[in-house]
């Protein structure tokens, strides 16, 4: 499977530069989370990747060549604003969309039946879309993106509007698709979810990529911190060289490493001064990394 890559992707609406020279890579075989605040340019970027919007500058690559409409036809896409024909029956509509993706009518019908079962909508096949609950409409939308065996998935906020168990099964489906070698890019506001699911991450702020890479790499790029909890007061750590004291409160201190190995000196001093209850590296949550890179 190929990877999705953008180079210098730029788009301006009137005076506003919504997307400003975005270079990103979505690798096959893993889930890539796309995070950023409202108006950061996620949706605009995804629409340009899907060819719905034309970039003012820059290009979108599929593997090592420019992405074509034929490539995109095989993708699964879930736009930010959901929509289906409200008055058409669920199965008919999905079959039609499958055919537009290049499936034969019979293959599309089989795939629709399978996916409706998978998403526990088997008994709703003959109903009009407007008769379904919003959550179920969301599932139909997901089926529309998945049913044709897409070669890539571009999903704008796929988890919004789903209840926790639906989020879990959706996550399973996405992981399974990613494991089969398909690049998956999805945007989300739920950072904990992104942290739990994603292999890599792209952070967008004000139309620009401010961080990109695997979650571990992003963490590694940030400062290394240790937490020290001792019986007595730890005010003395302020005098230790090679560390920056982030916070001290009684027997608890949060230290940031400046010189490699300085933490060993801290530990030795602590043990000399009395009992040590805890001394451990602090793994910053994604939300903290996010705040730092978008600040």
């Amino acid at each position, binding site marked *: 499977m190929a990877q999705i890559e953008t180079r210098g992707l730029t788009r301006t609406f009137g005076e506003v530069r919504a997307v400003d020279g975005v270079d990103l890579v979505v690798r096959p075989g893993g889930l890539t989370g796309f995070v950023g605040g409202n108006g950061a340019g996620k949706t605009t970027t995804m629409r340009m990747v899907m060819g719905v919007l034309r970039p003012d500058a820059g290009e979108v690559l599929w593997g090592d060549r420019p992405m074509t409409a034929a490539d995109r036809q095989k993708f699964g896409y879930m736009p930010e604003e959901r*929509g289906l024909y409200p008055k058409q029956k669920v199965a008919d509509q999905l079959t039609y969309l499958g055919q537009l993706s290049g499936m*034969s009518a019979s293959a599309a019908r089989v795939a629709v039946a399978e996916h409706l079962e998978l998403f*526990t909508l088997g008994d709703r096949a003959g109903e009009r879309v407007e008769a379904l609950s919003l959550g179920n409409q969301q599932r139909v939308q997901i089926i529309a993106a998945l049913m044709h065996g897409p070669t890539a998935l571009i999903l704008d906020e796929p988890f919004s509007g789903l209840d926790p168990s639906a989020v879990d099964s959706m996550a399973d489906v996405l992981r399974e698709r990613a494991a089969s070698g398909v690049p998956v890019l999805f945007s989300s506001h739920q950072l904990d979810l992104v942290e739990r699911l994603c292999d890599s991450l792209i952070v967008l702020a004000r139309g620009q990529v401010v961080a990109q890479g695997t979650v571990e790499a992003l963490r590694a790029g940030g400062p290394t911190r240790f937490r020290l909890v001792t019986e007595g007061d730890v005010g003395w750590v302020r005098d230790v060289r090679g560390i920056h004291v982030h916070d001290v409160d009684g027997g608890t201190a949060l230290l940031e490493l400046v010189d490699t190995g300085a933490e060993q000196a801290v530990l030795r001093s602590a043990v000399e001064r009395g009992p040590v209850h805890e001394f451990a590296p602090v793994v910053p949550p994604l939300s903290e990394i996010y705040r730092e890179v978008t600040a």
Partner: protein
Amino acid sequence: MSTQTTPTAPSTPSAPSTPPTGDGLRHPWLLVARREVATKLADRTFLIGTLLTLAMILGFVIVQAVLSERTQTYELVATASAAPMADAVAQQAPTLDDDLVVNVVPAADDAAAEAALLDDEADAWLTTRDGSWVLIARDEVPSDLEAVTSTVVRDTVLAENATAAGTSVVDLTTGTTLESDVLVGNADQRAFAQGMAFALAFLFYLASIVFGTTLANSVVEEKQSRIVEIIATKIPVRQLLAGKVAGNTAIAVVQMALYAAIGLVGLRFTEYSSFLPSIGGALGWFLVFFLVGFLLIACLWAVAGALASRTEDVQSTATPVTMLLLAIFFGSMFLDGTAQTVLSYVPPASAVLMPQRILDGTALWWEPVVALAILVVAAGAVVLVAERLYRRSLLQTQGRLSMRQAWSAPE
């Protein structure tokens, strides 16, 4: 919200590495057109409307046929003194009016005749009063009976008076009649052709409005529900436009052809059946012109739909199209002479005016060919312009767009 109860990872339907390729790839517009047609055929309102219209056409034709076939029989009561005149009426009635049969009911005297009228045993009473003939009915004298009777009475009395004066009716009336004739064709046939032209122009107007509105609404439905964003990643927007226009044009033309066929079959049973062969060729032209003209107008409707963001906007974005159609309709009714000739070349008015001129018999053989060629070229140009407007406005979802905005909008 309902709960999802299958947390297990799916296995079977996942990612077949090469999805099977269907005909959707080569002709996506056909898929779109097929969906348009299927949606329309599944629409109960549309089906009921079509059936009702067919029933109305059929009913109208049947009523016409029955009326023209039915013979009216009248009972004419007369006393002995009026009996010869009444017999003359009864005898001449079938020759004067195809649909009229008169039976004479003898009455003993005036009182008996009057009683027969009041008892509904007779429809009219023929008698004399103060030396003049009078036709009396209970409440209303049937106009066809009155017409026939007055003719018979006038001829009979005229003949009697002529004999009394020593001359004859023939001598008296020689050279007094005025006959009318037309140089081209036949007056009745001409009136029929005009009626037909009006009916067809109206049909075109109606179909354009009904199907155009449907098309515009289905375009804005896709825009409003945002499904167009998914479709636009699957197939070129041009194919979507082509499919929608083709699907709706097909339904419109089939529906009109159905109406026309039922109407024509019905006409065979009426007194107009003899005129049918003379307009067959013109009807063929109508169909061809309608097809191309409708294609052109359908594109305009699609643009009207794309310029709107919500169904409520369509009425205002479609106003120019509606006005154009009204203008064509009224033009087809009231224009004649040079104006008609000129406009019969100007698309899209030519779609109605040229076939009308063929029906009138005022078009030379090459004229429809030229007009059709111009119409086809114009339709092609409109398709190109419409495609650009459609493509650029389809993904703009902030309110209503003007033509100018749509034309220059970035993609």
